[in-house]
């Protein structure tokens, strides 16, 4: 993002799964059928300088189960605020350039939704802070490779009950300690002219937490791990200056204490220069 440019837009996301991992056991469940989570997210990015960008995002989510008696939930989820800083940009191997990007993200719930109704809760209701570093190589031909990793610290969550049982122990408290999360992603693709076409593989590892017990509901501090493949197409419309449209698809290939979600999203982003 160049200095004093604002990029803002909305993205609609549809995620659905009918199989999930109860601990490491993959199963379906007639009490819920398929779980669908939809969201509309507003995002905005502003170039404070050419190197430093501020990014904000707020999603509205709604969930539902195709079978059984569990009620879907809806609401404004968490506000995320990020600062992204391009630490270094240098020519590399004569064929392209290398960038090092650092980012810090803080997130906190914007509404009083319950995290104690998984898998239908709209989020985990935990305030969090993460640090991310990214290495990006862009060849002059348009191809690029990208590697990024982030560590997320998560604050405690408060439930609407005085005791809970997880990871083999009863806790006489309404407060739940949330384990930290590490995630990384590698991506490759093509960026040239009006087109951006990255595909990526990412993994999320929760550094602690217990498994879902046999035939139990998920719990907010569960060890939620997943491996996912993503594909994205971004295209800058030639007849409207500054308008970009994007469609994306993602699929979870393996996981633990998460649903095997397939995600489709579509949205637009509009860039205004000041």
């Amino acid at each position, binding site marked *: 993002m160049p200095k004093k440019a604002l990029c803002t837009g909305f993205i609609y996301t549809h995620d659905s799964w009918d199989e999930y991992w109860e601990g490491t056991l993959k199963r379906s469940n007639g009490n819920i059928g398929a779980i669908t989570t939809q969201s509309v997210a507003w995002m905005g990015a502003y170039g404070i300088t050419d190197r430093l960008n501020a990014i904000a995002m707020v999603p509205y989510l709604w969930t539902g189960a195709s079978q059984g008696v569990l009620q879907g939930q809806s609401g404004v989820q968490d506000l995320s605020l990020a600062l992204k800083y391009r630490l270094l940009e240098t020519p590399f191997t004569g064929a392209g350039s290398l960038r090092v990007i650092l980012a810090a993200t803080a997130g906190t719930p914007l509404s009083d939704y319950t995290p104690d109704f998984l898998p239908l809760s709209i989020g985990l209701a935990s305030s969090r802070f993460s640090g991310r570093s990214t290495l990006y190589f862009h060849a002059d031909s348009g191809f690029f490779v990208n590697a990024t990793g982030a560590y997320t610290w998560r604050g*405690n969550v408060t439930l609407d009950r005085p005791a809970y049982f997880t990871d083999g122990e*009863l806790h006489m408290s309404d407060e739940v300690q949330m384990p930290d999360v590490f995630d990384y992603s590698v991506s490759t693709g093509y960026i040239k002219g009006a087109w951006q076409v990255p595909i990526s593989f990412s993994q999320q590892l929760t550094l602690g937490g217990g498994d879902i017990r046999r*035939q139990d509901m998920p719990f907010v501090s569960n060890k939620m791990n997943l491996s996912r493949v993503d594909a994205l197409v971004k295209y800058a419309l030639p007849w409207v200056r500054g308008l970009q449209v994007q469609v994306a698809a993602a699929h979870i290939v393996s996981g633990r204490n998460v649903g095997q979600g397939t995600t489709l999203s579509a949205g637009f982003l509009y860039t205004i220069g000041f």
Partner: protein
Amino acid sequence: MKNESTRTIRAPRRLASAALAAAVALAGVAACSRSIPTLEELTPQTANNDDAGAGSWKMILLSGPTQFTVAPPSAVSSDAYQAELAAIKTAQANLTQAQKDAIDYWSGGAVLRWNQILRELVARYNLPPAPRDDGSYPAPDANNPFADPAFPFANPPYSARAYSYVTAAQFEALKVAWYYKYQYNRPSPSRVDSGIQPLMPTTDLPS
């Protein structure tokens, strides 16, 4: 990309302010991510009434407080009793941290702690069985209690029965204990020997 060199000079200051903002946010998260103890910390319980007449309260399960006999204690002046007092002093002088923690734990109230232990068991076993592939449901097996599904069930009727067993047993035990406490009326060791420190709030209850 233009003027890259001039921007590079100012970059460290911007990086420092970004790092500062990050550190502030980090401290905020760190402050609220304290670990949650599994055992509820309770202040030591103090009795506001010794219930001296509890030995004559109506029994629910036992025929009477003498259904179990408790032998009279040896005389205060006897060697056997003095040896018991000496054993308490030796034990008190050599308490391990685990023993001190246990004293703090039970100071919170034995009835309350036993209720919590039972709640832990109910939470552990309060799971419905998962259906088999053919859609049928297995039942717990008393001869193989740790197989899936775990034995016993802890659904609300079973749990209510378990709570009532433990609570009624505690109530009967209290009445029998009070009956013999007041029958033999032996002061507690800390009242007999000032070298013994009470490690829980004291009462006027006999030993």
